């Protein structure tokens, strides 16, 4: 029934009106895109808004919070600040707090980071490549719990356990009792879901402020129920199965 009405509307349009409807849709998408790119330019970071996925930074950040990031070259990173970083070869960024900074004479800087909420040793050495600093503004704090991933996705992408240490063998003091083995970290931010959230917000705003041109039925992005208990998976240190 619904599809027949929709087709009737389309048939009644001439070429220009059809093109205008297509353009309208394009403009919505372009507006969201331009706002995103604009934020990228202003803040200087590749991913200015990210969604927190795991609870490793509680009570500072909870799952589902949106974080605004900036990356100003002139601001140095100090101990105690929260940073969001991405490791080469891995897609998903990580948000942790800086514990120690090692600076060599040739300019190489290494950071020791750790999540606030992790009971044991869950920290990582990262060379100074592409690090993004959070401007302690979790403003606004969106607590949207409907986008958590399905079991499959969470196993595959978001929870990974690694056992290699990425610090240099020459580095004597990397702070781990079990150096160079058994370093574990969590991926806790998902850029895909961020984009999904932004698109939903953009569509929602468009619908609020204009009623007239939406002859389209927009597909809403699929909702997934939260069936994964991150805490239990993260805490399961004795799990030796390598999940990729």
């Amino acid at each position, binding site marked *: 029934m619904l599809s027949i009405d929709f087709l009737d509307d389309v048939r009644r349009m001439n070429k220009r009106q059809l093109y205008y409807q297509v*353009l309208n849709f*394009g403009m919505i998408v372009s507006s969201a895109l331009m706002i995103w*790119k604009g934020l990228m*330019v202003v803040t*200087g970071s*590749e991913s200015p808004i990210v969604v927190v996925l795991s609870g490793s930074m509680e009570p500072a950040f909870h799952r589902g919070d949106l974080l605004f990031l900036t990356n100003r070259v002139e601001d140095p990173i100090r101990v105690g600040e929260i940073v969001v970083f991405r490791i080469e070869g891995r897609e998903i960024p990580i948000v942790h707090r800086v514990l120690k900074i090692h600076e060599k004479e040739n300019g190489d800087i290494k950071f020791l980071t750790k999540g606030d909420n992790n009971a044991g040793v869950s920290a990582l050495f990262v060379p100074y490549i592409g690090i993004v600093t959070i401007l302690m503004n979790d403003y606004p704090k969106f607590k949207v719990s409907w986008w958590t991933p399905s079991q499959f996705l969470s196993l595959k992408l978001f929870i990974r356990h690694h056992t290699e240490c990425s610090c240099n063998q020459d580095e004597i003091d990397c702070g781990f009792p079990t150096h160079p083995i058994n370093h574990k970290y969590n991926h806790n931010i998902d850029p895909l879901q961020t984009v999904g959230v932004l698109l939903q917000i953009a569509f929602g705003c468009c619908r609020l402020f204009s009623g*007239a*041109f939406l002859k389209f039925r927009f597909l809403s992005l699929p909702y997934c129920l939260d069936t994964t208990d991150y805490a239990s998976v993260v805490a399961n240190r004795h799990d030796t199965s390598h999940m990729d």
Partner: protein
Amino acid sequence: MAAARNGKSGLLEKWRIDEKPVKIDKWDGAAVKNSLDDAAKKVLLEKYGYVENFGLVDGRLVICTVSCLFAMLALVWDFLHPFPESRPVLACCVISYFIMMGVLTLYTSYKEKNIFLVSLQKDPSGLDPDHMWQLSSSLKRFDDQYSLRVSFSDGKWRNFREAEFTKSVSTFFDDNGTLSMDQFEKSVSRLHDTLASDKKTQ
């Protein structure tokens, strides 16, 4: 060749449903206004045989297309040259995009106003320049008063006249949301003839 062309136009005829009576949701303000505007356009174009001029609409389409092109450019450039290098290009694209949005808003507010049809009445003798008939309408949100304004611009003597009527949409739609074309056509024609007769007396 002729058979193929006839076949194709036959398909096109079946696709276009101009002859079916228009039925819309009577509570949807946008659909009501759109259907009334379309019907007014039909009256002017088919009954009086005027030729539609697409200048205004094309202007808006061009502005929108240019904005989308800026967005595409930003997307493609950022994809080819990852973020830090693409920063100046991105900044330009974003700023241009928002400038185009401003231009579009100005265009729709001041140049287009509520005009949805610009049509030309061709002079049969071919000597005088064409007369221009414009239709504009307004229907406030959640209101039922629809006003249609017809303006006439004489090609030769540069006169400008306009007439309008404001009626409730319930006079044209029945309970099911079907537009009664006869009623509407009568109102529009009456409006048109007022202007046309004024032209003759002057």
